[in-house]
């Protein structure tokens, strides 16, 4: 069917245009008096054009708001499914295939099998987000261009029907107006009133067009641009792996650890925890015996490796780059690398002892030496004696009747020395040493040494000679290069929302047919405010009208 697209005002419109681009006359003759569909000012959208190819079809699919709404709705439902049980990502060390069935029973295994235990990483969830992104771009492009063109070339004199079929309408005869001159004067006066209300007014003889806050129409599109930037940033973060890094590190008090995959090392110089005192807490909490931490912080030093990095043979050469007390809300920041305080655990573990060598009988002291648990030296000079470390079991136990170690953590450290010096046998006197008192008893240190004929004792004098690490600090290191783009996207989106929601685009058309005044007004939202404004303006030019009565009586179906 060939549609006549030429309007009676002489303007040639694209096919499927709803309202003439020039005079606003409805092009689809339906004789009805319903209020007009004013979206995009009746201009034709790209996707509504005829002669569809496959590309056009895909395009029009994504340009449909209905499709967009469905996409948002499905995303919303999908996202909620992921909150039924905790996601896999909330655990650091579990096997999901057994965890979910064991913890949640049959429901748990179904949940796991459907892949809902990692909902937000599933292909369908990602696909939904990408489709929303596509829809955002295409919907916006499809609408913003025609709207821009329509708003940019508005004709002042509109067709009667266009004005009469607006949602806010006033028609009335003004008796004082006798001729065209009077009407023009009236229009000029009215334009002055509207200008005071911050309208931009243009007149054309007896016709008038007043407009304000057109920028508000761009709000939704600005918001969409922001969202697109945000989504792109998230996407880039996923794809370009060097731009994003996350690592978890646990560092003992006083220890230094490398951040995996980087040349950075963090030292936990000192870990501090403070708890609220009883009088700072409520009675109930005290009764329950709860202890609430007030503060925990890692006094951290960040080092960068400058030489021998990741060399398995040589020790790395480190250079201090930053010192910072890391707290929950105060991460360490260095050249885009952020180190956060995640938590801590009380893990008392022995670092070193300052041991004393004594005579078993006379208690005479020969000297002291520092014995480290992490990587002890193999010989020590104490007074006239030479201590050769011939065995070290960080986590001592018996494996099949032989001395062994359960782990490489110094939980039950045990040392075997061969001591040379005055009065010692040639091949050395064997001495077994447990630094921690409780282990001396369990493993009968004295009895073993006496049985071996040892005349010397290794011991610590006081607790001051024992160095413990009390806490392990859990830190997390992040690098997120794309972050500024995310904040920019969100800011743009927010600006768009504010423009779109807190201002509204208002237009008033007015014309005289002899002494009959025809006024129509349109707003993209907040009709209440528009009616009030029009009523006030009319009141100032001597027409009394109830704001409510300006509402076009003809309702949309």
């Amino acid at each position, binding site marked *: 069917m060939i549609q006549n697209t030429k309007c009676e005002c002489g303007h040639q419109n694209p096919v499927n245009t709803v309202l003439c681009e020039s005079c606003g006359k409805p092009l689809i003759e339906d004789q009805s008096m319903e209020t007009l569909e004013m*979206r995009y000012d009746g201009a034709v959208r790209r996707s509504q054009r005829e002669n569809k190819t496959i590309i056009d079809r895909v395009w029009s699919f994504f340009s449909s*708001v*209905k499709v*967009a*709404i469905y996409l*948002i*709705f499905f995303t*919303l439902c999908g*996202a*909620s499914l*992921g*909150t*039924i049980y*905790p*996601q896999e*990502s*909330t*655990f650091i*060390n579990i096997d999901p295939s057994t*965890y979910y069935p*064991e*913890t*949640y*029973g049959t429901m748990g295994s179904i949940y796991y099998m459907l892949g809902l235990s990692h*909902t*937000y990483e599933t292909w369908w969830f990602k696909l939904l987000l990408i489709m929303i992104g596509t829809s955002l771009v295409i919907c916006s492009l499809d609408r913003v261009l025609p709207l821009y063109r329509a708003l940019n070339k508005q004709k002042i004199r509109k067709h009667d029907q266009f004005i009469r079929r607006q949602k806010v309408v006033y028609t009335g005869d003004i008796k004082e107006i006798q001729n065209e001159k009077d009407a023009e004067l009236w229009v000029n006066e009215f334009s002055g009133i509207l200008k005071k209300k911050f309208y931009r007014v243009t007149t054309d003889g007896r016709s008038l067009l007043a407009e304000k806050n057109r920028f508000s129409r761009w709000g939704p599109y600005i918001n969409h641009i922001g969202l697109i930037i945000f989504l792109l940033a998230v996407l880039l973060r996923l794809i370009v792996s060097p731009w994003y890094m*996350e690592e978890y590190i646990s560092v003992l008090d006083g220890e230094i650890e490398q951040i995996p995959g980087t040349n950075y090392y963090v030292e936990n110089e000192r870990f501090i925890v403070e708890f*609220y005192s009883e009088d*700072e*807490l*409520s009675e*109930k*909490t005290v009764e329950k015996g709860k202890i*609430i*931490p*007030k*503060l*925990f912080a890692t006094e951290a030093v960040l080092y960068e490796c400058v030489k021998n990095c990741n060399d398995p043979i040589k020790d790395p050469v480190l250079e201090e780059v930053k010192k910072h007390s890391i*707290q*929950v*809300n105060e*991460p360490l920041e260095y050249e885009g690398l952020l180190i*956060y305080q*995640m938590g801590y655990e009380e893990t008392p573990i022995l670092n070193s002892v300052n041991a004393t060598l004594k005579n078993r009988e006379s208690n005479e002291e020969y000297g002291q030496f520092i014995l480290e648990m992490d990587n002890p030296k193999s010989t020590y000079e104490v007074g006239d004696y030479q201590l050769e470390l011939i065995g070290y079991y960080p986590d001592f136990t018996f494996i099949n009747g032989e001395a062994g170690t359960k782990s490489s953590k110094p939980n039950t450290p045990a040392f075997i020395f061969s001591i040379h010096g005055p009065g010692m046998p040639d091949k050395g006197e064997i001495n077994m040493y447990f630094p921690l008192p409780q282990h001396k008893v369990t493993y009968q240190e004295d009895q073993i040494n006496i049985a071996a004929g040892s005349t010397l004792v290794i011991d610590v004098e006081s607790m001051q000679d024992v160095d413990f690490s009390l806490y392990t600090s859990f830190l*997390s290191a*992040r690098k997120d290069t794309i*972050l500024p783009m*995310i904040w920019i996207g*969100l800011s743009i*989106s*927010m600006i768009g*929302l504010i423009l779109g*929601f*807190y201002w509204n685009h208002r237009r008033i058309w007015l014309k005289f047919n002899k002494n009959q005044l025809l006024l129509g007004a349109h707003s993209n*939202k907040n*009709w*209440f405010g528009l009616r009030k404004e029009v009523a006030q303006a009319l009141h100032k030019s001597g027409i009394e009208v109830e704001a*409510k009565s300006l*509402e076009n009586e003809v309702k*949309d179906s």
Partner: protein
Amino acid sequence: MSLEQISNTALIAAFFIYIIAFFMFVISITGKKWSNRDPEAHMKRWSRFAFGVTVLGIASQIIYFITRWIYSGHIPNANMFEFMTLLSMMIIVGFIIIYIIYRSAGTGVFALPVAFIVQAYAMVFPWEAEPLIPALQDNWLKIHVTTAALGEAFFAVGFATGLMYLIRTVNFSGTSKKERRSIKGVEFTIFVILVVVGFIGSVFLFNGMDYHAEFSKDVIVPAEESELELEQVTTENVEYTLPPIVKPYNSEIVSMDSYFGIQKPLFEAPFWMQGVNAGRKLNTVVWAFIIGTLLYYTLRLILRKPIGASIQPILNDLDPDDLDEISYRSIALGFPIFTLGALIFAMIWAHIAWERFWGWDPKEVWALIVWLFYSVYLHLRLSRGWQGSKSSWLSVIGFLIVMFTLVGVNLVIAGLHSYAGV
């Protein structure tokens, strides 16, 4: 009087002032037909009065807020009691803004009850102020929570007016399928509100009676969570403050006061409710439903018609289009605020405190769901012309999702926000 007492008194005062203001708004509308009165003047005078009283109420609530801030040393929005009180305060702020724009006394008839029911709900939780854990010691606590609450408060006002629109327009004598469905929907919404009231009522009732029961239950700590990396069994105790209709699954009675002559719990929680608190929560829900249902049917017996139908005459003079517009307007006002507070500020703070701006924590996900839902609402309304009852239904459902996000997520799902203390 200590600062704490002043604060608590001011809050209770605010609560009752809102109830008074609510009745005054009702009078301003219904009283129009009273004999020998000029309807217009009556409405103007009474609604001005009612509005004044509301302002008085919020002044009192602000006194609570400031004094509590002073004596506890941190902004009062850190636990459930404080947050819900803040929300109720924000609902009043939202209502005041909407009232100033539209001068519609009718809005008060529904917005005020929403505010004081939320306030009463807050009062169910422990009132004591606790010092902040390190994660909360940050300025973003003030900014994020307050803006999010304000956004949600506008959604609450949108809900109140949306529900008003529905009650105003539903044809309660209608018999067509569509009309019957609308009646059922409205009645169901009212029922849900009564269940919430039932919950609050039951907690206050049995707390007043100082009811106590205690159960113990063996809990298996999975190997992953125990220090020894072995499965362990520990015994945990739960305290009930509501009489146990349902006891936790596989639990023993430690102590139990009898109620209505009942000595033992009537039921046991189903086996899939594993957690030690799951039984207690289920018991609370059961009580809420029992009292809610009782309230609903008592009201229906007294009124002898659907509750919505009895409220409708009060609203008859209100213009449905205005209600529709107000509902939409408050959601449109709230949407950017909600986006800023519950999503953008949340992301900024999460970036600072939790080393990532987004982590799919249940609370985050539900905030996103709320946002997506209201963007569906806005698109349907602005692009597809959903107005009137369709749009009002969405505003009602939307607020239910908001409440689930605020309350349900803490009750049912835990996650990182669980320090809010339910």
